[in-house]
């Protein structure tokens, strides 16, 4: 049986599934229920400095992008960090950690970019007995207008500075939570490492507006007649998050830096993606907010079953296994040739592949044969783009067949080569090596 327990930069938990710092981890009541359901850890809803608590809006905080069947594709929020007294949160963290010593309890923190603010809060957090701290440099709404959250995460120098303060004033592992609202995620990650971070976590939410009410022509979600951009998360953001995780994992300057993966994780398959691309733990929010805490049991069961099937004994054996498969375009092998193949036995004749290819791609799929409805790939036109595979409603009906070396590519008439050809050496590249 595969072991799911992890040691993430010194923080141990019985499984890699943590609840992200968010509404589900706002208070002891929720966290208690989460641990009962089986979550391996929680990152407590972000703490603010002592004083009058943060104020939230008293109207819609959430908005969603729904499919026609109302399954949730994307989710957005304008909720701020905790709006409860610091002391209450600290007391609850202390009590929870005492009751659940085997689970990871991490405190998320967001205070102004002043050394004395961090110096003041860190000992109090450490005193709770929590396992680590996560620096919220990610929230893109509200707090960023006050110079915190993503306003810090967008300036590598600030990240490095604050991280260094935290390392100076606390013995706890420091996880720096990054915002995706930047042009190149490698820069903030490098800054975190330079500041001494023990790990990074990403992604926080993405700037977003969910839509416009067609009757009132008001953006949504709105508080009265106006709304503001929120932070976008949920299944739709996973590909963006995976890219950013992979970038940090394969950047020589940050390679090996522990990563806690966040963004659209709702199943063991999603978790697998993050772990294989370098994440040592994963954090979940939206799926819990849609389905409740029990969802973690399906994730644990699915991941353990997969690892057993693949003969993987531990998360460590899976972690990072796909990083080497991520590269730059210029290093892709241009001598590889694939062609789409439509399985006529499972084809239901909807014709989506044809019209997609005919209207928008390479006119490589027939609509008729002998006057009858028939969809078949014309190999002499097919560039292997994969569009038909993606629009086909039948799982496995259209597949890509890679031509073996020595076969003729009927589109180009050339024999498929068994040697690698990258753009860097391609004859059409004026800057090719040796040119």
């Amino acid at each position, binding site marked *: 049986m595969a072991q799911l327990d992890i040691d993430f930069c010194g923080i141990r938990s019985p499984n890699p599934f943590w609840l992200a710092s968010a509404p589900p981890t706002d208070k002891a009541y929720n966290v208690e229920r989460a641990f009962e359901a089986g979550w391996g850890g929680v990152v407590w809803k972000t703490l603010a400095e002592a004083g009058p608590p943060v104020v939230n809006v008293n109207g819609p905080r959430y908005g969603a992008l729904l499919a*026609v069947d109302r399954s949730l594709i994307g989710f957005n929020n304008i909720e701020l960090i905790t709006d409860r007294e610091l002391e209450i949160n600290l007391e609850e963290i202390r009590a929870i950690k005492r009751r659940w010593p085997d689970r990871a309890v991490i405190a998320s923190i967001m205070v102004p970019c002043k050394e004395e603010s961090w110096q003041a809060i860190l000992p109090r957090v450490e005193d709770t007995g929590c396992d680590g701290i996560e620096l919220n440099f990610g929230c893109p709404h509200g707090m960023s207008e006050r110079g915190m959250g993503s306003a810090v995460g967008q300036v590598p120098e600030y990240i490095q500075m604050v991280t260094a303060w935290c390392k100076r004033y606390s013995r706890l592992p420091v996880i720096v939570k990054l915002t995706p609202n930047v042009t190149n995620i490698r820069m903030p990650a490098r800054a975190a490492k330079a500041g001494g971070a023990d790990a990074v976590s990403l992604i926080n939410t993405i700037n977003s507006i969910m839509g416009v009410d067609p009757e009132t022509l008001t953006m949504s979600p709105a508080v009265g007649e106006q709304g503001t951009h929120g932070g976008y998360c949920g299944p739709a953001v996973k590909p963006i998050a995976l890219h950013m995780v992979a970038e940090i994992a394969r950047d020589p300057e940050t390679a090996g830096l522990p990563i806690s993966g966040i963004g659209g994780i709702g199943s063991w398959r999603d978790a697998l993606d993050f772990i294989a691309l370098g994440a040592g733990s994963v954090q979940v929010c939206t799926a819990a907010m849609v389905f409740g805490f029990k969802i973690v049991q399906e994730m644990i069961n699915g991941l353990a079953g997969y690892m057993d099937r693949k003969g993987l004994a531990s998360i460590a054996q899976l972690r990072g296994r796909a990083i080497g498969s991520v590269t730059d375009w210029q290093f892709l092998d241009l001598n590889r040739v694939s062609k789409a193949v439509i399985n006529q036995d499972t084809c239901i004749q909807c014709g989506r592949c044809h019209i997609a290819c005919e209207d928008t791609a390479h006119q490589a799929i027939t609509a008729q044969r002998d006057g009858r409805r028939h969809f078949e790939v014309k190999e002499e036109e097919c560039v292997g783009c994969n569009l038909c595979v993606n629009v086909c409603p039948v799982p496995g009906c259209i597949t890509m067949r890679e031509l073996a070396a020595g076969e003729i590519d009927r589109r180009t008439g050339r024999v498929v080569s068994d040697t690698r050809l990258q753009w860097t050496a391609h004859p059409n590249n004026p800057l090719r090596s040796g040119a």
Partner: protein
Amino acid sequence: MSEERRADIRPGRLPPQTYAARFADHVPPLTEAQALLEASRCLYCYDAPCMQACPTRIDVPSFIRRIAEGNVRGAAESILTSNPLGGMCARDCPTEVLCEQVCVRNTEQGLPVAIGRLQRYAVDGLMAGAHQRLFTRARPTGRRVAVVGAGPAGLACAHALARRGHSVALFDARPKPGGLNEYGIAAYKVAGGYAQREVQWLLEIGGIELQCGWRLASAAQLEALRREYDAVFLGLGLAQTYRLGIPGEGLEGVADAVEFISRLRQTPDLAALPVGRRVVVIGGGMTAIDAGVQTKLLGAESATIVYRRGEQQMPASRKEQDLARIQGVIILHWLAPVEVLGEGGSVRGVRFARQRLEDGRLVPAGEELTVEADMVLKAIGQRLEAGLPSECGLAQRDGRIVVDESGRTSVANVWAGGDCVADGEDLTVYAVAHGLRAAHDIDTQLRNVRARADG
């Protein structure tokens, strides 16, 4: 059965408050949530098979996509542009042998997209809204067309001609327009007075003058119409029913199923409608099913549909047969009526002869069977009014009017469509298609005539 008896035919077999529920929509309308979910199953096929299967070529993927996008009015517009009686077709089309039969979801999931129910959702949505008007009548052309018969064919033709700016005189022999939609199909398929609701919507286009209670009964009348109008469209339907031609047909308790359904559709009080305790329906089409099911719904103890051929040959679709069975109707096959048995002038049963196929022909198999009955409904088909078409010089084939691919009859300036022509199946949707193609051809002809006159 030796004692003196009369057939047990009487009204009010059920508690009065139960009738409304029994005759309510047998396929309930989709809720918004159901419609959105069902619409999401449509794959928006290329050159969609469902569209090809529809005699009126409704663009099914387009209207379903519009439902999914929350554009119900646009969905209705797409439907009604192709078929102005789309609301009725959504209710009474045998979709299981038309659009839904060829839906690609059958192959993949064993369950087609519920196209008919979605179509009803869209059209009902429009009808329930504040702005029901979709089409504007073109500038009046000054041309006048007579449309005889306000059934689906005539209504579709009249509406299409009116849209193009022609003036239409629409005649019908019955007190109300709608044809079989009003008088002929089962009440539970068109609950809530939908037939009249639809006619009202169609007439709102303007330029159509409806005259009910006018029957085309002579060649002289047709001649007068041809003189008075620029074109004539005949959507006569099939006004006569076939006789069994066996002894006992005149006994009390033997009636035409068509007549029975018509009375049922028009009665203000279903509890007042007499129905037999044991009913036998002879025939195998939709009318037989509609009659059998409705006698059961009226409280008949038993209803038995008897058809002379097998289940495969039955004109009623499989789905209709299943519906009847669910309602407790018994369907017997391979039995041809030999004699209606009576006692004291009333029917007491029907004697049938078992049939078998010999070189494709039905022949008696030797065995006979009697089914006891208090009421016998004949549903063995309808035909044109005898004599009239020939008198009018209309060429016929198999007892129906012959038309070309534009709906023209053999008589100049006379078009025809619907059940009265020898083309397509006896379904609302074919009648609509006939009416529309004739309207298109009439319009083309009238414009050409005018163009020549102007030139």
